[in-house]
């Protein structure tokens, strides 16, 4: 009995000392890497702001991965350098000249890194420029055999296909659950929800921020996802975690004209179409899938069987625009409100 007890004591002591070390302040504080602050704290008040922010964040991400890899290389942290540079190479539409510079560096870093590095350098695209290849042909992650499914959604009636949510679920077996994550704010600005439609993974916590000078409320009567964040003023954020899959209709109890959607995906493989209907879904393992496309103005979502393989053709889906907005918008107790009254 003595020996196990000694072992136990040793384990406890080791755990306690490691906890103490972890809790104690670092003697030498390393400079904080700027790139860890994603997403950028840029104000988003309009759709144009959103587009600007997305563009800025992409450039920021490229810089972060490029420079972060170099810093890691310089201090001999080759695995981190591989991680940064190869992540950069996996970004869509990486400028060709940048790829030409980074690819040999990433290869060199991988040669320096331990053999246990799990990821391999993405295959160099063929053709005149990398950018052209990425746009027109599905990408293949050679190490994980992950595929980027590109495609487009058509239809959506007069509103167009923008905002359509594309979800892939395994045709056979169980589709894994997405890991819950925090999502940037849906803001209320000029009596609108921005973004108007947002797809999130199951279990995601979404922040709702009031950027109007007037008070707002956010509620939903959608079964299984009903919630009410109460009344709150300018600058205040509230959070809601979405635990059931499907579309969630967002409304404001103060302003009957406000309407928006959060779509909760129970699959980790989902994305949204842009205004033209184009979408790109990255990191999908090869296999047979059922693609479901949900659109705000389609009465029923569209399902299509898809075989995801390297070099697959683009996925084309057409959705109807046959759903009409209900004649009356309910308040949070479900009572209809007349739009001509505005209250």
């Amino acid at each position, binding site marked *: 009995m003595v020996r196990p007890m000694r072992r136990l004591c040793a384990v406890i002591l080791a755990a306690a000392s490691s906890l103490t070390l972890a809790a104690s302040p670092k003697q030498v504080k390393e400079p904080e890497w700027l790139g860890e602050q994603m997403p950028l704290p840029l104000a988003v008040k309009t*759709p144009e702001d959103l587009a600007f922010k997305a563009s800025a964040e992409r450039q920021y991400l490229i810089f972060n991965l490029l420079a972060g890899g170099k810093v890691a290389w310089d201090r001999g942290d080759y695995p981190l350098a591989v991680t940064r540079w190869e992540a950069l190479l996996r*970004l869509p539409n990486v400028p060709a000249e940048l790829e030409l510079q980074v690819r040999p560096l990433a290869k060199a870093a991988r040669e320096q890194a331990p053999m246990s590095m799990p990821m391999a350098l993405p295959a160099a695209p063929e053709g005149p420029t990398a950018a052209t290849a990425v746009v027109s042909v599905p990408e293949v992650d050679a190490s994980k055999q992950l595929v980027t499914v590109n495609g487009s959604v058509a239809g959506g009636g007069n*509103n167009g296909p*923008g*905002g359509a949510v594309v979800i892939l679920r395994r045709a056979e077996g*169980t589709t*894994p*659950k*997405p*890991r819950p*994550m925090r*999502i*940037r704010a*849906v803001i209320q600005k*000029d*009596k*609108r929800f*921005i*973004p*108007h*439609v*947002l*797809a999130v*993974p199951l279990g995601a916590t979404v922040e709702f921020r009031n950027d*109007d*000078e*007037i*008070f707002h*409320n956010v509620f939903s*009567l959608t*079964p299984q996802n009903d919630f*009410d964040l*109460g*009344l709150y*003023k300018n600058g205040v954020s509230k959070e809601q975690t979405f635990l059931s899959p499907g579309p969630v209709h967002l409304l404001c*109890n*103060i*302003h009957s004209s406000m309407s928006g959607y959060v779509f909760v995906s129970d699959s*980790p*493989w*989902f*994305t*949204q179409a842009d*205004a033209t209907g184009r979408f790109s879904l*990255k990191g999908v393992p090869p296999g047979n899938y059922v693609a479901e496309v949900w659109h705000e103005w389609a009465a029923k979502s569209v399902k299509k069987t898809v075989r995801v393989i390297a070099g697959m053709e683009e996925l084309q889906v057409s959705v109807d625009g046959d759903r009409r*907005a*209900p*004649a*009356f918008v309910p*308040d*949070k*107790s*479900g*009572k*209809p409100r*007349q739009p*001509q*009254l*505005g*209250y």
Partner: protein
Amino acid sequence: MRQLAWVMVLLVTPAWAAEEEMVAVDEENAPNGYTPSEASLNEVLRFTGYLDVGFAKAFGNGSSFAANDTRVPADYGSDAFAPAVNSRGEVASTDSGGRFTNGFLPRSVGIGNRPSFLLNTASVDVRFTPKQVPLFVFVRAQAMPRFSPTGDATRFDLQQAFGKLTPFSAHEFALSLGKFDSVFGIEYLENEANLRTNITPSLIARYTTGHSLGLKVFYRFQLPALWSAVSFNLAGTNSGTRIEALVPASASLVGVPVGSGRIGYELNLKSVQVKLGVSGLYGARNDQTDPGALQQALAGDLRVQAFGFSLAGEVLRLNDARGPNGVKRTGAEGPSEIPSGFNVLGGWGRLAYTLPLTNEWLSGLTFYGRYDRRHGWFEGFTTLVTDRITAGFRLDLFEMLAIKAEYLFNREISGAPRVDNDVVTGSVVLTW
């Protein structure tokens, strides 16, 4: 046994592991969302509407007039509005048995005590929202097909037609011009068949839910520290807030506008909504030629919604001054002979509970009960007290179909003999 236990563990573990399989969402896939341009969010022109089909059976002879009551005017000695059969407040019969009436009568579907199907209302709304202009134009037209020779004839009504300007995006301010809903009280908010929880209007709806031509101003401001808002709804119109059966021309004989308004307070807590209001009306009587004959009204209202329960109520005090000798123009039947003063004190309260059951096809199942009471007296005539107990349900399906049924227990408390004028009525409302 130990081997069996291991087998069980081995069998269960993969299943458990499969359930727990989780994959991180690729940051690049996590969408930033989609926001269409503001202009494309609203339809420029939209048509909506509803069709209200009903079934009703009134007891007695379908009216509130007692056969053995010989007083005249007959409509001053009984509540002719009591046996309502539909959302418009139309009654089964206004047959007074040949006795003189003085224009204080509702519309009648003329079914007497016959169980009958009714095509209550076909209603069309037109909403015009021009792009880039803070203007909203609204028109509501209604058809009331009537097939009984003893009731009112088929009618068409341009119930509302107005433009609403909302010039400030950061302020809740709206200016409306045209023919619009009353701003008095709260019953106008659910005056249509597809909006009202129950079927029939209250015993005081005849005074508060009319439509007039004029100018309306709405303003609401928030009280941040109190989770509250205060709203003002003021209107200057060509007539008061009585329904068209009482003021058919929707115009004032003296040409003097009537002022009406409501000050509202709302408390918007997370689980509880409370709305309180005080309404007032002041102006010349629409049915008199003397601008000195005034109509005045004051009302208080309350709405509370919490945990599926909904409580709503309203109390009204109304006074019409006596007009000069001569005719008045009250009611749909033309000039009436007695320009008497009139007073009413009345109110209603309704408690409803919506079951927490919704799915793809069931939008709601609500049970309700309402109590109405009206104390009315024409000066120089008998004071009349009546009340009504209404019980029923509303079933909402597919967000477009409402099926309602209710029973109205109408009672004469004082001033009139008891009459068998209860009503059982049902309604199917299709909203499109």
